[in-house]
């Protein structure tokens, strides 16, 4: 019961944040809404027993990536959004498409509710850092190393792109 209430609270926070992201016209407000979404998701991860992920969700997503966003918004001094109408297709085709997508997926989930069962707060030490570390550095060692190379490349790319042309 407590579990469900907590989930509903956090889920509502999530959805509210996401909706606010859409509703706000100023990017910095959107960014902060997204931080709220991410923080709430971190809490939901805790409900799912993924403590380590919850922590790095906060540190990496909310604390690093979103700070970068905010930083860029501040750097470019981005103002409120223009209400231009460059794409009618996005309205006519895309919005119904996205809604249909959501409704369809939701409908599948609801109709298969029984089949999926339910999730409890994990009583075991599931999601502990040790186990993830073991997976990451043993079973997924190669992908891990590859992602580190990816990050390196991304850094270099960002440096090259961001450099002022002399």
């Amino acid at each position, binding site marked *: 019961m407590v*579990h*469900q209430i907590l989930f509903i609270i956090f*889920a509502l926070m999530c*959805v509210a944040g*996401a*909706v606010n*992201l*859409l509703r706000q016209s100023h990017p910095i407000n*959107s*960014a902060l809404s*997204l931080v709220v*979404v991410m923080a709430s998701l971190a809490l*939901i*991860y805790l409900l*799912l*027993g*993924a403590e380590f992920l919850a922590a790095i969700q906060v540190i*990496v*997503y909310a604390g*690093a*990536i*979103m700070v*970068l*966003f905010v930083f*860029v*918004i501040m*750097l470019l001094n*981005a103002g409120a*959004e223009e209400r231009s109408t*460059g*794409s009618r297709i*996005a*309205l006519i085709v*895309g*919005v119904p498409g996205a809604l249909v*997508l*959501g409704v369809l*997926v939701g409908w599948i*989930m609801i109709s298969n509710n029984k089949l*999926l*069962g*339910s*999730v409890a707060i*994990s009583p075991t030490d*599931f*999601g502990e850092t040790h*186990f*993830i570390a073991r*997976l*990451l550095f043993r*079973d*997924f060692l190669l992908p891990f190393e590859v*992602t*580190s190379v990816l*990050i390196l490349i*991304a*850094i270099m*790319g*960002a440096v*090259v792109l961001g450099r002022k042309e002399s």
Partner: protein
Amino acid sequence: MVPLSWYLILSAVLFCLGVLGFLLKRNIITIFMSIELMLNAVNLTFVAFANYWNAHGGLLPSGKPVVGLSGHVFVFFVMVVAAAEAAVGLAIIIAVFRTRETLNVDRVNLLKL
């Protein structure tokens, strides 16, 4: 006990909100944030299923038991990729802004800077 479908529906809702953000927002940074929102929505399904498989067990088509924590690892990778994407993407946004002096994607509709 929370039904798994709740998590998945939440994920779908977040994802669709991300899609809508992409469709409706004009600011390129906000659009980028919508992408991050979609990534987060997907991460949620990973974590939810990781928990689900850990609790329920199960076999892969290859006959090996499912390692529930793999979902966490995938989330980890998604985060790494998102970080890389943010670094490069924001650098691109800065480059675009320098030349076109706008962040409105409706005005950035030529395949050049």
